[in-house]
């Protein structure tokens, strides 16, 4: 299900108010989303969704980054569901390396930060350092409800409740967790946004 919010972070142009982000929660009950409802596009299958975006994705990557997009994944305190979905992108089924996407070991090699989790107190320094170490131009994609600021854990004594509390975010991919195809659509959105 394509459900990606685009957000512009330009110096001086403020941010989307929290209320608007909160309204995006797909669940009717704030604490207990009902995943047992069958998703609308369940019949379509991942292959068609993947086909729809793979050409555009490959074309954008070649055009903007000259063949490859290097992504550094950063877990800032997720429940590991989003993190496993990001891992799934590298499996033979999605195989993002054929689009020119690669996951790198250091932020210094990265074009994009894929951040999961809503930044815990114990990881704030790591998030700031990782962002600072990523060379410009860089894109940040927040993956998952916690990272987008619409997650369950929210703000606590140990949790900031959203990645944009600490570093600027270009694209939000909500979901609990978002499926691998949704994450890819978010990555494509970030690329389309740069031109």
């Amino acid at each position, binding site marked *: 299900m394509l459900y990606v919010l685009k957000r512009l972070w330009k110096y001086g142009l403020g941010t989307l108010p929290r209320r608007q982000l909160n309204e995006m929660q797909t669940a009717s009950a704030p604490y*207990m989303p009902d995943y047992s409802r069958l998703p609308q596009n369940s019949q379509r299958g991942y292959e068609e969704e993947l086909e729809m975006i793979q050409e555009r994705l490959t074309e954008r990557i070649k055009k903007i980054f000259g063949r490859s997009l290097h992504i550094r994944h950063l877990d800032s305190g997720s429940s590991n569901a989003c993190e496993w979905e990001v891992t799934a992108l590298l499996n033979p089924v999605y195989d993002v390396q054929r689009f020119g996407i690669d996951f790198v070991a250091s932020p210094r090699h990265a074009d994009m930060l894929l951040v999961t989790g809503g930044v815990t107190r114990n990881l704030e320094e790591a998030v700031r350092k990782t962002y600072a170490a990523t060379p410009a131009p860089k894109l940040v994609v927040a993956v998952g409800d916690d990272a987008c600021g619409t997650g369950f854990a929210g703000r606590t004594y140990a949790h900031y409740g959203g990645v944009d509390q600490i570093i600027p975010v270009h694209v939000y991919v909500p979901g609990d967790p978002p499926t691998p195809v949704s994450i890819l659509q978010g990555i494509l959105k970030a690329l389309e946004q740069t031109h």
Partner: protein
Amino acid sequence: MKIEVIRADRRQLAETYESALGSGSRLLTMVASDEKDIGIDRFVLRYFFATGNGQVTELKTVVPETDPSFSSLAGKLPAASWYEREAQDLFGVQPVGHPDPRRLVLHDDFPDGVYPLRRDYPLEQMQPRQSNGGFSFPPVKGEGVFEIPVGPIHAGVIEPGHFRFQVMGDTVFHLEARLFYTHRGLEKRAEGIDLLQGSGVSEQLCGVCSASHALSYAQAVEQIAGTDVPVRALYLRSLLAELERFYNHVGDIGNLCAGIGFSHGSNHGARLKEALMQMHYRILGHRYLRGMIIPGGVRRDLTGGQLSEILRVTQDVKVQIQQLVKEITANQIALDRYRGTGVLRQDIAQQFAAVGPAARASRIGNDARREFPHAAYRQLDFEIPMLEEGDVLARFLIRALEAGQSAELVRQIIGTIPEGEVLTPPGELPAYRYALGITESPRGENVHFVMTGPNNTIYRYRVRSASYANWPVVAFCAPGNIVPDFPLINKSFELCYACCDR
């Protein structure tokens, strides 16, 4: 579950433990709670022990506000170590005589004297950072001795945690792990939430143990309510728990190949795990099985056609994963890397009350499906494989055997599931009562402590996942191995950081 309560004086915990419990018991969990609101002065510590045959004994002590200290059990019972450190960080109760009183959950920049899980501390208040000496690792001295810090942010796509290796050349002679980087404060977030919405909290603890956490929580709530769950719902719950075990073990087999750079194994394992997760999404609505298990039963029923589809996919994957395991165990390089690596000694596993496949690979045979039968497990026929070498190969084989068992259980459940309702909502729950919900996640036994508050809300929620119980033993498996074997040892436990840190 009937819990026998033994009251102890806070200064004589160790003696009471020795006389009443002793070495025949296994520590399940320890829960600290601030019960000022109920008129108790003020902190209650409850140590829960499994004493055999599904019995649970509680060792209860009260710690007053004016002198918040108690004599530590950790000296006699290493398994209690982390629980007491956590209570110290979050409640300010001091374990006197604890062999390792460093900060655990709150890192050293959290101000002294501030305790976030006390009732009067506001949930959302973020404290400023104090500058501090930092966490102290044991110092390293000697010619040719190095210290290698790894993490918390790792090179691959993995959760955060810090490991400090002390090595000579390539051989590790000491390892220490520092965790709780993904501590989000979910237990405090849970306080005040409606009890029937609490499954939402339990599923947020961890992605890959979602179903077993939701099940533990639901079981605790149902015990307090005293309601029965419809039989069909019990079978569906077992089905979900086994589907979770199956996809986790299939994925772990692939991950263990990734740990040695065996891409044939890791790719096929990942492909099969993806097949299962897509089946979950198509039929159950969520790749990680969230949203189905709630107090009272399951959210919705499954039709015969959906059950046959689940059966078809799981049996298909079972055949392929068994073929893959044959290929891996026929590979000499894989066997060479796995055999003898990262041995978990049985006495260490015993003293730290390790659980799950990692413990069963060292001949510590607890499995919550047998010890605390829940859902439909009393009616199902299954084996609990056990091995004794305790190395990576043993943990790998245990997972392969359990994956086969899980697929077999899925077939049994779908073959024998009765018709009927699937949900009986629990209704109004009495205030200030507590219960334990115990289930077997893919990593081992989860123990959830739920205490109700007024108006059907949660008063205290304490989760001890299998990962929390097992993380302390991982550090004992590394010494004597080479540094490149550590990722393999870590993957052979495949513990969640999120489940542990909450």
